[in-house]
């Protein structure tokens, strides 16, 4: 038997496989998971290629509601995924309701009850259509019900959208002119204001930097506890709109900027803290800042990573402010900001396990281009949406 142990067995022993995986440590909390929502030519329910960049995201109970952006000539989708079943359950092609649209990228605003609102952006064709407001609700059996509320600004897309606390009025920024509008849900009446749209002199300056409206128009609006709406305008400024007085105020403090790069100033994410302070993300150089609505002062909190962009912000159930910093041509980094603790903590690229029929053993999914972030209402989960040719959902738990 010694011969077997000494000669034959070693020959029979095979070296274990060591996969050639990247040598970095990823953010992979226990119980985190990815949901495969995009996959071409599948027997499973999935979103098709190039029509699935997850640019709007909302969590309602166990359901994740997503809105996508499509590539040129294709139409976007709305979808529902189940957190408990970890799968995509419903898809709806926007083309069936409003043809000629490219994206649902405003995020979802809450209306009365469980009704959601979003705006669309049309394709940039020779005869572009206008973007529409849509009302989205979840019917029984995970049916997505979409109602077309029409185009609030003729010939313009809807770049940004927000609802008031009561869910009775919507506020938005049109594209490409950058006009502010209000939409009364009950009366369906729209009012359009030119106050925050860039003027000719500003446009000439912007032209010298070769930046377009997607860079300088306000990408995100927020409401303070007094019902005032805040957003950014070209030139690195922040405005406040009072819906009662229908007046605009431009704050004294500009957005935080890197010298010489003020032209890139754009708020692309907001999150309201429990104490009412407003945290914002500046796309230009990726600074996080806080706006105190009582003093109207802005404080620059710094940059979580070296890159521009700060695409999403949301408070987790653990009280931390989570966000998505950076993006193409680099990669997005998930980070959190803990004012009372470590300050900025860069979690890097998340890498979560994806399990689905056909990949029951599980595969690791690494998030590179992350565009949207939403917290579940119970605060237990943070949900990330990707912006890829084939985008997936990435979900991680937070401790309350």
């Amino acid at each position: 038997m010694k011969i077997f142990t000494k000669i034959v067995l070693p020959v029979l022993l095979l070296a274990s496989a060591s996969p050639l995986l990247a040598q970095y440590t990823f953010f992979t909390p226990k119980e985190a998971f990815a949901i495969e929502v995009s996959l071409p030519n599948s027997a499973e329910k999935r979103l098709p290629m190039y029509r699935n960049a997850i640019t709007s995201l909302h969590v309602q109970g166990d359901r994740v509601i997503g809105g996508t952006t499509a590539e040129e000539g294709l139409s976007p989708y709305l979808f529902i995924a189940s957190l408990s079943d970890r799968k995509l359950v419903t898809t709806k092609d926007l083309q069936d309701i409003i043809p000629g649209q490219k994206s649902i990228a405003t995020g979802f605003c809450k209306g009365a009850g469980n009704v959601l609102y979003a705006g669309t952006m049309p394709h940039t064709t020779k005869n572009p259509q206008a973007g529409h407001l849509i009302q989205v609700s979840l019917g029984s059996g995970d049916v997505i019900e979409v109602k077309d509320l029409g185009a609030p600004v003729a010939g313009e897309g809807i770049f940004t959208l927000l609802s008031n606390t009561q869910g009775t009025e919507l506020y938005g920024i049109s594209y490409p002119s950058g006009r502010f509008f209000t939409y009364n849900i009950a009366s369906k009446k729209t009012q359009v204001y030119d106050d925050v749209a860039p003027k000719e002199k500003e446009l000439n300056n912007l032209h010298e930097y070769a930046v377009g409206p997607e860079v300088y128009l306000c990408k995100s609006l927020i409401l303070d506890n007094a019902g005032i709406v805040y957003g950014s305008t070209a030139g690195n400024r922040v405005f406040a709109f009072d819906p009662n007085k229908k007046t605009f105020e431009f704050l004294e403090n500009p957005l935080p900027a890197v010298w010489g790069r003020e032209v890139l100033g754009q708020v692309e994410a907001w999150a309201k803290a429990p104490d009412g302070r407003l945290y914002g993300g500046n796309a230009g150089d990726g600074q996080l800042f806080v706006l105190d609505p009582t003093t109207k002062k802005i404080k620059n909190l710094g940059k979580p990573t070296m890159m521009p962009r700060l695409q999403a912000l949301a408070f987790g159930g653990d009280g931390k402010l989570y966000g998505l910093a950076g993006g193409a041509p680099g990669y997005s980094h998930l980070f959190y900001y803990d004012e009372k603790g470590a300050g900025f903590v860069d979690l890097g690229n998340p890498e979560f396990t994806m399990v689905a029929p056909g990949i029951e053993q599980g595969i690791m999914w690494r998030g590179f281009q992350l565009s949207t972030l939403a917290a579940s209402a119970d605060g237990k989960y943070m949900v990330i949406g990707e912006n890829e040719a084939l985008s997936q959902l990435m979900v991680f738990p937070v401790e309350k």
Partner: protein
Amino acid sequence: MKSICRVWLLLLCAVSTFAQKPAISEKQVAFIEYPDFPEAHSTWGSIGYNAAANTVHIGVTNHANNIGLYTFNPVQNVMKLNGFIRDMANLRPYQWQGKIHSKIVAAPDGSIYFSTDGGESREEYLMEHPQGYAGGFIMKWDPKNGLKNLGIGMQYESIKDVDIDPKTGTLYAITYPQAHFLVYNPEKNKMRDLGRLASSHVPRVLFTDWWGNCYYVDWRQRLVKYEKDSESLVFARESLPAFPGTPGSKIITGITAFAKDEAKGIIYLITYGAKVIAFHPQKEGIGKVEDLGGVFDTGKEDAWGPYVPNLNIGKNGKLYYIIGGHDNYVLKDKTVLMEFDPATRKSVILKTYPSTEITEATGYDIRDKDGNLYFAARRNPSGVGDNTRPFMIQFNPEKEIRK
């Protein structure tokens, strides 16, 4: 008597487990060194055959910032350094390149194409930092005109592999770490990014069929075809065959090697999960996929375990590959030269080498006019760390190599 019988039975068992042909002649194998590059460290699939000139081309790296481009002429039996990439491409220090990771592909006119790769940890996250990685380039070289830099694929991204449509000159590329599939028309300088196709790990291999369509895999190890006529991607419905229990980390890495038998209309593939597959491409749509079994009879060990980053096909229609590398060896501290007969689906060991003599070999589908097959190999004589030296293996499965 009892113990003699036991040993005899065990030996019989061992012989059947590792079927072995009579040893191949030493004159069927040649180890060829790369001259004039004392700091050379390795090769990484960076080898290819140029049918127009009957030459083999190799990119050899110090695995830091210098890459030598070599040409081997099998008729003259001469290995020649053509020059270093950073000089020939006029790269500045901030455009450093760690290696050529792609195979080297040839156009009908004798030009060769390849791409460059960061190769080091600093490539992936430092980006615009002074030590960061600018991005991998696509390059063209021919002996008359020298090297032409065709530009970056994606900013900050390496290019792991390229292939060519020989009819149109269209180049295909896959980037690292985001696994974007690129289609590049050099005549029009038109780069098209078809987006990300993989998950956490980037499958390293692209291959083309005889119509010029290009293939890759998605994260489910399904074939993804760039169909040149429709200029779009076609995804296979089913995943490539895999052994039960193949870990997800192997599935997402796809195929490691290919070799073409155009006469039979077959492209042979080896997966990262150690399957040998006969793929029958068709001009439109995805063709038939045939599971030929494993690369090696692993006995009781996991069949998906062996690591085979290379594959060649002989004039006899049989497949040849070397198992081992990246600390994964089927025989302790040995790399194994294998012959696989697709007709019988049987594999035999032709020869074993100490892993200090051949530590790892790469290269796909490289056969010269005399039937010699080529592998880009490296050796670690000390067996410690990653202190390797590259060399090329020339192997003729049917006869002695003509000198």
